[in-house]
């Protein structure tokens, strides 16, 4: 039986009828068409689907959309402001912190949540915060460099 849910995504309110079995990741991509959130493993291993749910970093493939009724979600599409990439996104570009790009939305969301709570993280803290995001291309080095750089260059993310 479908349920009507109201979810605010990147500041815009969506009211949609969804089947309970629809995962939040699929709701974002297929129901409301925000395909920036990637879906990799769908069992909570790869982290590509990470978003902020009520400001907490979560894996949207381990969450049913119906559980998010009344909540607010920030996805990768919500980070750029007025066509300007966020400091973290710019740092990822500058440091070649991606190749195929599949893991990138999750990496950027995790970095965003980290720098919001800890603006000056150590390398160890960066690596721990990115734990749960798998990248098959970069070997992680450039990603860590990008986050370090973003932390250096920003008063806010």
């Amino acid at each position, binding site marked *: 039986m479908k349920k009507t849910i109201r979810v605010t995504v990147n500041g815009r309110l969506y009211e949609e009828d969804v*089947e309970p*079995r629809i*995962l939040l990741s699929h709701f974002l991509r297929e129901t409301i068409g925000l395909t920036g959130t990637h879906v990799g493993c769908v069992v909570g291993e790869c*982290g590509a689907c990470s978003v902020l749910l009520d400001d907490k970093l979560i894996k949207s493939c*381990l969450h*049913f959309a119906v*559980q998010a009724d009344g909540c607010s979600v920030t996805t990768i599409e919500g980070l750029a402001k007025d066509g300007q990439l966020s400091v973290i996104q710019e740092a990822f570009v500058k440091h070649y912190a991606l190749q195929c790009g599949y893991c990138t939305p999750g990496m950027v969301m995790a970095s965003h949540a980290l720098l919001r709570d800890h603006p000056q993280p150590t390398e160890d803290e960066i690596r721990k915060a990115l734990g*749960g995001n798998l990248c098959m291309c970069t070997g992680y080095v450039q990603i860590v460099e990008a986050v370090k750089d973003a932390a250096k260059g920003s008063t806010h993310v």
Partner: protein
Amino acid sequence: MIRFDYLEPATLSEAFSLLEQHGDNARVIAGGTSLIIWMRQRLLMPKVVIGLGRIPEFDTITFDRQEGLRIGAGARHRDIELSPAVKQHYPLLHETFRKVAQPRIRNMGTIGGNLAGGDPLTDPGASLIALDAGLTLASSNATRTVSVEDFFVDYYQTALEPGELLTEIRVPPPQRPGWSHIKFTPRSIEDFATVGVAMTLRGKAGSCEDVRLALNSVASTIVRAKRAEAVLRGQRLSDDLLRKAGEIAATEVDPMDDNRGSADYKRDLVKVLVRRAAEQAIQRLS
């Protein structure tokens, strides 16, 4: 994903009546980090999923010097990790929850879901056994208390009866100031443990008055190593004695070969890690 109906009770008593009404067809969901995976794998195929996320005060954490710590079953791993009361009075729990999976899973998964899942690979149960914690299991017409130690029955099997929910975790006031938590992982920090060891210890001047020791990832349940405890309890502590405690603990576990290591390897790890845990716990006494 299988099809199911989703119901969201606004109170605990409403949750109990839904559980009664739907019986075996129903499963409860809190954080979802275990249940959704099991549903995807078709290990569980509930017709009804009951969401506990809207039950008020289900995630409350309170501390009292006489009563100890009370953790609502809906508290997330991250809530416990970051709780000032936990950090101050139960450093073992703080350390344990800091090491559960990685931050975004800790933002989702709950302690109740973790324990009720009965998965022997996870960390919280061992530390709760080492702290002699108890669980409140409630249904529409009764409430009972079970020790965490007795709660785990077999792989994914717990003492929960049909219609019952785990509602609260109660940890006695801190009694054994020495403690250690060692999580040995096969590759990266967020893996399940190859072997996990949790210990609390009380004593002075190089002797052990009391000790509790529990291990995860080494048997069909999280286990308490009572014979290894007995080796240490009431004794003067020496290197030989700690080594012996490790050797005895290794006879109390029944690990499996898997991608985290062979059974023999895990047993060897138990010997070493129990000794190291005891060394750390003793160090923290002073």
